[in-house]
């Protein structure tokens, strides 16, 4: 287990270094002068040549790529993510302000997804070929096919403009969370429901279910205690991985609902050529992605200890 963990952490570090190099390179090969963009953003008008060259000098933008990268990495390793070009705030504080909103959205979306998917998946699997099954499958198909931004605007039209119940955009209270969480969660619900159904049907075919039934256990216990627990192994994996993808989805959903989170922070930073913010957010998302994968693998073991890892003793 320890060797396995060590190996996983080693891979994690390598992945993160690759992410940082890739992000750094991509930002630098993108045309456009961050000094001009940042100063225009700050001043609200076109900057003078002097201001631009002073800015480049001050932020080390005249240094070669490698020097800039090494300087940045050294700072990051000492816990300093740098200072935003646009706002002159520390990147860490900007992320700190936005991260709770994104995490809240992600958790709420997961809750919505699981709340819809588990009952739908179980109902579907226990009544295969029934109307409930077809309805659930049709719902899942619609959920998977509908783009987040489209559903988002649809929900704004219905929930905010027609019914006048929810605010159009922003963040703050629970009311601001409902529409974005449903938007983001419904797509995931569809994926998870289909998976629960398939996994449950697989498990129902297993001999131990027949054994359980032949022992005279009540169907409810067979379904929820025996079948569902085992069916949850692939489901937890996907749910775990989906948590990382939620961050991707959150970018779109946050933009649609103008919700201040990591997604909108990243999009704004890209438009503003705000290198330190782009690098900081990307690195953080990379860390979350890699750590989520790690946790999924560990949870996997907990749920089904028979799973081993490439012959390593577990």
């Amino acid at each position: 287990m320890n060797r396995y963990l060590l190996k996983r952490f080693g891979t994690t570090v390598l992945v993160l270094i690759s992410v940082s190099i890739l992000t750094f390179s991509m930002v630098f090969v993108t045309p456009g002068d961050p000094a001009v963009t940042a100063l225009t953003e700050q001043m609200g008008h076109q900057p003078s040549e002097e201001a631009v060259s002073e800015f480049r000098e001050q932020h080390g933008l005249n240094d070669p790529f490698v020097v800039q990268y090494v300087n940045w990495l050294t700072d990051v390793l000492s816990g300093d993510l740098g200072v935003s070009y646009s706002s002159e705030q520390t990147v860490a504080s900007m992320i700190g302000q936005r991260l709770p909103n994104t995490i809240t959205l992600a958790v709420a979306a997961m809750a919505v997804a699981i709340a819809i998917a588990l009952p739908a998946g179980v109902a579907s699997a226990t009544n295969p070929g029934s109307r409930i099954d077809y309805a659930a499958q049709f719902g899942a198909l619609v959920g998977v096919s509908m783009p987040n931004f489209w559903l988002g605007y649809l929900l704004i039209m219905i929930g905010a403009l027609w019914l006048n119940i929810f605010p159009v955009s922003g963040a703050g209270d629970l009311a601001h969370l409902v529409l974005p969480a449903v938007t983001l969660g419904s797509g995931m619900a569809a994926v998870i429901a289909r998976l629960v159904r398939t996994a449950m049907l697989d498990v129902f075919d297993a001999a131990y279910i027949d054994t359980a039934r032949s022992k005279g256990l009540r169907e409810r216990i067979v379904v929820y205690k025996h079948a569902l627990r085992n069916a949850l192994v692939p489901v937890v994996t996907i749910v775990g991985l989906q948590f990382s993808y939620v961050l991707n989805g959150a970018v779109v959903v946050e933009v649609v609902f103008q919700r201040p989170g990591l997604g909108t922070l990243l999009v704004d930073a890209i438009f503003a050529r705000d290198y330190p913010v782009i690098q900081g957010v990307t690195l953080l998302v990379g860390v979350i992605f890699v750590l989520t994968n790690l946790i999924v693998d560990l949870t996997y073991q907990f749920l089904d200890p028979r799973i081993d890892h490439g012959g390593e003793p577990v």
Partner: protein
Amino acid sequence: MTNLRNYRNSRRSVLKAMTAGLAGLAGCSSVLQGDESDSTSEQKTTFHIGTPWNPDSLDPLVKGWMFRKLNIIEPLVIADYDASVKPGLASEWTTSDNKLTWEFTLQEDVSFHDGTPLTVDAVVSSLRRSFEADSLANLPVESISAKGERVVEIETSTPFAPLPAHLTRAPTSIVAEDSYDNDGDIKKPIGTGPFQFDSWTQGERITAVSNSSYRGQTPAIDTLVYESVPDEQTRVLKLENTELDMARALSGSTISTLEDREYLEPVDYAVPRSRYLVYDTTSSPFDDVKVRRAVMHAIDQEEIVGSVLNDLGPAAIGPFPPEVTDWANTDLEPYPYEPQTAEQLLAEAGWKATGNGRERDGETLEIGLWTYDARTLPLVSEVVQGQLSQVGFSVNLQVMDYSTIDERANSEEFDLVMWSNSLLWYSDPDRLADFVHSKDATMFSGYANDRVDTLLEEARRIPDANERKRRYDEVQSIVQRDVPIGWLTYVTNVVGMNAGIDGYEPLPTETCYHLENIEYDMEK
């Protein structure tokens, strides 16, 4: 306004009931308390204004224009409704005989929001910090000092008539010493305006409250909430949903939506901002003035205004819209839409018509037109592309990021760029130097004209407004003749707002919203 408030309150109560249900399910009661306090504050006048710009810094040197627009901070000099300069925190100013020393006399009985008086020392210290910043570093200011109890003395290295106009700029606004912590970082902007800073959520909103000890009239708005809503469509939706009382930076196409709602109204007004073409005067084909003039004759500006700008232009002749400012040269001759004249000029320049375009010495008349996505520029560019193709140009339109255009146009050959800019973000025509001075220009046409340089440099040194105007008029005439920059349309701002608001008078220079002047009309 009463109806609107009731409407909003009823929406809130439904929302509150729904939220209570959800919160109850989640075992969460703290959310309710937040909503409770929110609904209590609705009894007071809270004004929500939505703009595309992020309140991501508190520092007046970084995002000071935002605090200036909300009138939390005030400078020594302010922009008037005719885009001229008028006294702000300084009641008057004079220059010495050699035009190098300026004396600004401070108004009396002015206090900062923290109750401390506006002293000459506070002003000097605030201004010194401002003039050390990147954005003001290129001005010829040598020193700033106190002279007696009420006078601030500013020395310049050369005579510099635009100085008062530069003192209208947001970073020169005066803030109290206590605005900063010991490291010189901003804690909160403490100004002297009719609104005072209350709170800030980074990247989201600024909240300000009315300053009851303001030297003028206390604002009708108790709480002012500035929200960042980058997407235009969302700003309109929030306005329709009464989450905003005012939405700014809207395009002409939103006017009909706003007019359809009886509780909303659009306000449009001329601003000293233009959409224009920048020619690369140093490379073929636009190194030939005839080809530049041909473009001007080939473009139907009225068609642009009518087809893609919802009749909100109007067509531009020179850099400054005459209805906004006296600095416009009203004698400028426009380039009328005359495709035949354009074709003739192109032929004279050696570009002969072929079956499907034009050629000169085996080279086809193919040009690149670059623009960026703001103020309907891509759509206007498409119309221009179509109109130019009528006289034989083959136009490759590219929409890029503006900093990419800036970088490429300054470092490589290009043909044509469509840009939009404010011509008077500080209220002085010296701004023309940014466009057409051979060395000072930040626009990239490569234009160099000794007479224009001389006139601009002279006008900058002369204090007399009439003498200056004569020179700027001549600069505008020469530029109109040489067309390194072709003015296409002026920009009309569109603001959407609650119909229950009276007394909103938009300031053309866009430097301050002056929301302290608005009133609520209870009848609407």
